[in-house]
């Protein structure tokens, strides 16, 4: 539970303990994200974690191309826009010339696992001391709902109207498991924003990923399974249920590797 700042409530109530308030690192601008979109939850978790760790003033963040292209309007951080897929390379450039900065890359599934695959693999291979937040909702939201590398087999999208067929469109890419093989990767984990319990675990993963950069100067990636209600053709609550029940069979939750806490753990649910 986040306690960002103990404060007097503004409604003139007796001085109660604030259990939760909107994190300071979230700007006042209402996001353009669709109702129920997971990006809003992930932005919020990032704002909470960076606020808790006091990293806001020294963060330089890299914004993707995708629905989160306007992330710089929603988080009170220095931001640089990257071309589609290039965020890990842009982050590398920042990292190498700003040794004291906290460097964050925020990417979607097309950005990281399609057009940007070379950039993420090599940033991870070099062990760049950056933290990558990888929001995976298995679809291209910004461009209208086409297939992503992480789209599930059988999932209908505007470019797989009959459902994804592995024979022609291949299999969902387990990019985070692939990256976890690399010795330069200090931490790789997969969380989900489907329900409060997994949101809490996802927040802990984001926090650990940030700590890995600060304490160990190593590469960390947190993949966060997310929803796209409009792209999936579901209500937000239906999307959350689908995410909780159907997606982890292809993308299991858990810490895939944490090289600074003993032997690497194998892929599995929970922690």
């Amino acid at each position: 539970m986040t306690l960002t700042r103990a404060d007097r409530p503004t409604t003139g109530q007796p001085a109660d303990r604030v259990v939760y308030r909107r994190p300071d690192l979230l700007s006042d601008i209402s996001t353009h994200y669709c109702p129920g979109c997971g990006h809003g939850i992930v932005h919020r978790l990032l704002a909470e974690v960076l606020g808790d760790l006091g990293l806001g003033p020294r963060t330089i963040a890299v914004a993707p191309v995708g629905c989160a292209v306007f992330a710089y309007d929603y988080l009170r951080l220095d931001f640089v826009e990257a071309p589609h897929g290039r965020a890990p390379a842009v982050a590398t450039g920042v990292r190498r010339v700003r040794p004291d900065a906290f460097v964050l890359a925020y990417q979607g599934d097309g950005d990281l696992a399609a057009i940007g695959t070379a950039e993420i693999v090599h940033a991870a291979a070099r062990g760049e001391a950056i933290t990558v937040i990888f929001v995976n909702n298995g679809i291209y939201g910004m461009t209208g709902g086409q297939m992503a590398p992480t789209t599930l087999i059988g999932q209908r999208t505007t470019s797989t109207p009959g459902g994804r067929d592995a024979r022609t469109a291949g299999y969902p890419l387990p990019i985070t498991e692939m990256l976890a093989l690399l010795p330069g990767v200090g931490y790789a984990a997969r969380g989900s924003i489907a329900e409060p319990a997994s949101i809490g675990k996802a927040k802990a993963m984001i926090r650990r990923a940030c700590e890995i950069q600060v304490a160990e100067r190593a590469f960390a990636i947190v993949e966060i399974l997310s929803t796209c209600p409009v792209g999936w053709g579901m209500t937000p609550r239906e999307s959350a249920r689908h995410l909780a029940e159907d997606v982890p069979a292809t993308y299991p939750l858990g810490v895939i590797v944490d090289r600074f806490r003993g032997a690497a753990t194998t892929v599995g649910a929970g922690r």
Partner: protein
Amino acid sequence: MAVAAPASRVPLPARARGRAFHPLEIDIDRCKGCELCVGVCPPGVLVLDPTIVNRLGHHPVRLVDATRCTSCALCARICPDAVFTVYARPRETSR
């Protein structure tokens, strides 16, 4: 259907003014009516208010029974728009 009043806070109903405790503050002009909070609230005391259309064009969420809210903050944890401020119930306030 009434359009939301300029003030973005939920107005206190008459019976609640005075020393009653309010566990939730809802920024109704940020809410997008996604109902994720409605789905996770354990006592089920959150609903969309059909009498209000907010600045974003949605029916915002409303706390229908403050006495049954336990300040668990699951609503705040799942809200994509950080609409909620949650307060812990002080021990001396009776339900």
